[in-house]
C-alpha cells in the first residue's frame, strides 16, 4: 500500500519537475519533440533507479559507518558520472540508433539535477507516506526513484506535446521560444497543484 502512495506522491503531488524544480534544463532543452522526450525519459529512469540504489548503499554502508558523510556530494556525483559513462558505452553497442538520436543529451544526464537531487533526498529527509515520519528503506528508495523518473517523463512528454502545438500558434515576437515555454510550464505546474493533498 505504501508503495502506491510513494508512486502517486512522486508522480503527481510532488512532481520532481513541476513542483521541485529538478531537471528543468533538459526539460526546456529536449522537450520540443515527443519522441526525443520519451527516449530521454527512458534513459533518465534507468540512471536514476540504479544511481539511487548505489548511492543508498554507499551512504549507509560506507559513508555513515566511517563517519565521512561530508564526502557525500563528491562520491555521489562520481557514482552518477560513472554510471552515465557506462550507459553510454552499453547503449553504443546495443542500440546505436538510439545513441545517435539522444546525441549530446546522454552525457548531459550527469548534470541533470533530478538524478543527483533524488539520490540526496532519499538519504536526507524523513518521509511521511501514510504514517509517522521515517527514513526510506532500500526497496522504498528504489521505488521512490523510479516513480520520480516516471513523473519526470510524464511532465516531459506532456510538455513536448504542448510545445509541438505552440510551434504552430501565433506567438508574439518577444515571447517566442523560451519565454512562452516557461509560461506554459507554469500553467502546467498550476494544473498539477490540483493534486495537492491527494496523499
Amino acid at each position, binding site marked *: 500500500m505504501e508503495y502506491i502512495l510513494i508512486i502517486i506522491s512522486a508522480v503527481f503531488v510532488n512532481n520532481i519537475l513541476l513542483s521541485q524544480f529538478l531537471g528543468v534544463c533538459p526539460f526546456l532543452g529536449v522537450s520540443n519533440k515527443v519522441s526525443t522526450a520519451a527516449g530521454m525519459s527512458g534513459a533518465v529512469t534507468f540512471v536514476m533507479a540504479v544511481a539511487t540504489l548505489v548511492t543508498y548503499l554507499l551512504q549507509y554502508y560506507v559513508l555513515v559507518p566511517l563517519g*565521512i558523510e*561530508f*564526502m557525500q556530494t*563528491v562520491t555521489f556525483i*562520481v557514482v552518477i558520472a560513472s554510471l552515465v559513462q557506462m550507459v553510454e558505452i552499453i547503449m553504443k553497442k546495443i542500440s546505436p540508433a538510439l545513441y545517435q538520436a539522444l546525441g549530446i543529451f546522454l552525457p548531459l544526464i550527469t548534470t541533470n539535477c533530478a538524478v543527483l537531487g533524488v539520490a540526496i533526498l532519499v538519504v536526507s*529527509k*524523513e*518521509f*511521511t507516506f501514510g*504514517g*509517522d*515520519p521515517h527514513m526510506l528503506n532500500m526497496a522504498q528508495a528504489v521505488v521512490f526513484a523510479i516513480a520520480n523518473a516516471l513523473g519526470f517523463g510524464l511532465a516531459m512528454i506532456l510538455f513536448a506535446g504542448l510545445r509541438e502545438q505552440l510551434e504552430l500558434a501565433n506567438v508574439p515576437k518577444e515571447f517566442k521560444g523560451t519565454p512562452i515555454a516557461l509560461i506554459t510550464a507554469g500553467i502546467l505546474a498550476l494544473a498539477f497543484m490540483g493534486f*495537492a*493533498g491527494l496523499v
Partner: protein
Amino acid sequence: MAKSSTLKNMVVTLFAVTLIASALLGGVYALTKGPIDLAMAAKTNNAIASVSPEFDNDPSAEMFMVESAGKSYKVYPAKMGGNAAGFAIETYASGFGGRIALMVGFNVDGTIKGISVLSHTETPGLGDKIEPSKSSFSAQFEGKDPQNFKLVVKKDGGDVDAITASTITSRAYCDAVTLAWEAFKLCSNQKSEEEKANE
C-alpha cells in the same frame, strides 16, 4: 597543452585529483566541526529558551528521553535554583506537506508556556501560519492547561481554532502537542518520584 591520454596518465590523474580533494575536504571538515556543532546546538537552545519559563540551568545538557506510546521524546528540563520550573519537549507529527517538528514548553503546573516550530514543509500562506511570526494560531495555546483545553480542532469537538483552509495542518499540529503533553505527564511523574527519593 594537456597531457596525453594514456591509460596510466588517466588513472594516475583521477586518483591524484580525488586523493587531494578528499584530503582537503577532511581538513575543512575537521576545522568546521566545532562551529557546526555550535550552530546546531544554538538552534535547539534558542527554541528551548523561547518556550520555557525562566531558568538558570543548561536544559540541553540535562536532556533526557521519555518513552510514550512506543516512541521516544527528547525532554529539556528548565530549572530555577535547582527546582524544576518547566519542561521543553520535542515532538513530531505528519502534516500536509511532510514532517512538522515542534518544541512545546510546559510550566511545572502543566500549563503550556509556548510552542515554537523547529521545522516544517507546509504550504506557504496556508499551513505555514503555524509559525508564530505568521499568525496568532500558536499563541492561542499559551497559558492553557490541556486538562481543560481540549487539544483538538473545534471542527472535531475540541477547543482549538484551526487555521482557515488548513485543517490538516492544524490537526497535525494538535496531534503533536497532545503527544508532547502525554510525554510531559510521564516525565513530571518521573521527576516527582526522583524528588521523593531524594528527600
